[in-house]
């Protein structure tokens, strides 16, 4: 049984406190999904509020056919998509500059590394923005948010096969963009050097010492 069902029933009876409790229970999850979909942006707070306004308005018609969390994710991604569409008419900076991978002389979470990581994340989202809306969403939900393909299919109302195909082509496009990215050239060369006979996660490269910035 859906753990939220009692709260949903109370909200559908018109009890304002139940809406508030649903908000408190799910606001962190919604914030995270909005943040994942938007990427680093100052608009997260506004979009989260928009999501919950829409949740409140749509809750009377929620019939429990899908899990509440799936329904909520679908609503959150749709509201975020609309926000992104509106933003697309605004001018954006198109340059992509991916900073170097972690420096081995820096502690794992030093302020420098945090800044670098934030910049890498921004760069990734700039590359993701070149994908089509559907591919971008699928890739973010699956690869960054960890939503299984089956659940994405349920959310979008499409076959799982379509989700998988879309994910594959989204990755192919992104790989092509990454391969062409000049600021990644040094990292790529280093990754290439490690390849034969060492099929381990690339993250291990920091153990061998990367070129300091």
């Amino acid at each position: 049984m859906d753990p939220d069902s009692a709260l949903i029933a109370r909200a559908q009876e018109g009890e304002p406190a139940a809406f508030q409790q649903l908000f408190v229970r799910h606001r962190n999850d919604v914030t995270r999904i909005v943040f994942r979909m938007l990427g680093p942006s100052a608009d997260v707070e506004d979009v989260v509020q928009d999501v919950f306004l829409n949740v409140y308005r749509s809750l009377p018609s929620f019939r429990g056919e899908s899990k509440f969390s799936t329904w909520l994710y679908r609503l959150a991604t749709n509201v975020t998509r609309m926000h992104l569409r509106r933003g697309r008419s605004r001018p954006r900076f198109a340059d992509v500059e991916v900073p170097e991978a972690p420096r081995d002389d820096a502690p794992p979470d030093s302020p420098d590394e945090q800044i670098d990581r934030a910049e890498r994340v921004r760069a990734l989202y700039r590359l993701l923005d070149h994908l089509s809306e559907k591919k971008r969403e699928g890739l973010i939900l699956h690869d960054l948010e960890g939503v299984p393909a089956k659940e994405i299919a349920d959310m979008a109302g499409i076959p799982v096969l379509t989700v998988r195909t879309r994910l594959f082509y989204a990755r192919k496009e992104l790989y092509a963009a990454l391969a062409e990215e000049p600021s990644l050239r040094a990292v790529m060369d280093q990754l290439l050097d490690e390849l034969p006979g060492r099929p381990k996660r690339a993250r291990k490269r920091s153990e061998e010492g990367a070129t300091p910035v």
Partner: protein
Amino acid sequence: MTAHAPKTAALIALAEGLLSEPGQARIARHLAGCEVCRRELATIRAYEDLAEDARRAEPPAVDFERMSGALAREAERVSATIKRDKRRSPYYAWGALALAAVALLGLYAGWPSDQTPIARRAPRVTVEEPAPVAQIAYLLPVVTLAAGDAHKVAGQPLAPGDTLAEGDPLHTGEDGVVHVQLAEAMGFIADARTDLELTRARADQVEIALSAGRTSHTIRSGSSYVILAAGYTVEARGTRFVVSYLEDIVGVDVAEGSVLIRTPDGEEIELAAPASWRSQGSGTLAEIARPRAPGEILMELRHPDLVRWEVDGTTVDTTGALRLQVAPGEHRVHGWDARGRIFSALVPVGHEPVFVDEGRLEAEAPRIRQGHLETADIQRVIQTAMPRLRQCYERASRESTPPVRLRIQVGLMGEVRRAQLVSAEPVPNILRECIVQRAQALTFPPPGGVVPPIEVPISFVGRQ
């Protein structure tokens, strides 16, 4: 160095740690001599690093207190509307639900703008704040010709006038042929021995997944119209063309306009009329584990429905067929179809190439079982629902309406998976939507398996 398209699927499997140790070793041997694949793998890892950074990124601190005022006001407003509607007649409650459902559906599924059911004296809650999404207009595909063995779900024969919906499969047998009109001047013909699924049927997007056979298409210029076959994507630019998937070869013949073909390797081929194109038979196969190691034997797996394969713990996502090298011995092969059903076979491998087709890959538990619904149970559920269905009629109009048939697909747990109203004559949208919506809320006894759709004739007679 051999120049070829990078084996992205296998490299992703490697990067994600899905390959067994022998599999990793085989790929490593290939990588040593293949710059294309090495570069692709380096890119995959660079992406994985960036994705890991993104996964670790924390959302900014959000001031939930700041938004609590606006949300509390909205909660009060929605609650007041709910209570007001409850105090009034049940019609209002249904109206509120119907209208809120429209807003919700508009938000996450799209809804034809011309079919929005508007309840009389509609509550204001959803009218004031329309859902901020683009509306989706669904097509209503109609069968215009059906001959020979032609059917859709559960062997249900197709006849002219039948309507199709998104997700409907369509099958023609030895002597079957079906013509489907999607919209004005737009449609397709499925020739004999064709299996397809209409995965998208929208005004701005049509998508057909072709598992086997031959289809001819006529489309309007500028439509988004895609056919998927064996990992190939055929994107029509217009306006007349044929797509076939016969004996593992995907074929495209363009009579008018052009199409864009995307291969499973991501290659794009633009084909302008008049032109024909065929995929290489074996080129449609995904391959893992190359180059061949001494003593290893070729194993080829084919099943048109399977989209994911697992052989001895190595998983590959590819549609229809897979080719790999295996050591002699017994190998456990699993496959999954798009609906998640598991198929399996235990394959003994000697010293000759092995070919495993759909006859040997059997559906494994949970099997799709045939279920059963007692006629008396169906009648009881429908009879109980009849007063509410009659309310639809009373809200829609008090005039006689043409006889309609309510077609209901019941799921494994007795839930209604799909409800559709079928009629030879026009039915008011408000009536159609109301009945479909209420039918979707019905619950039947669990049939314990798959059952054919239930057809319920409904006839409303006008009051004097």
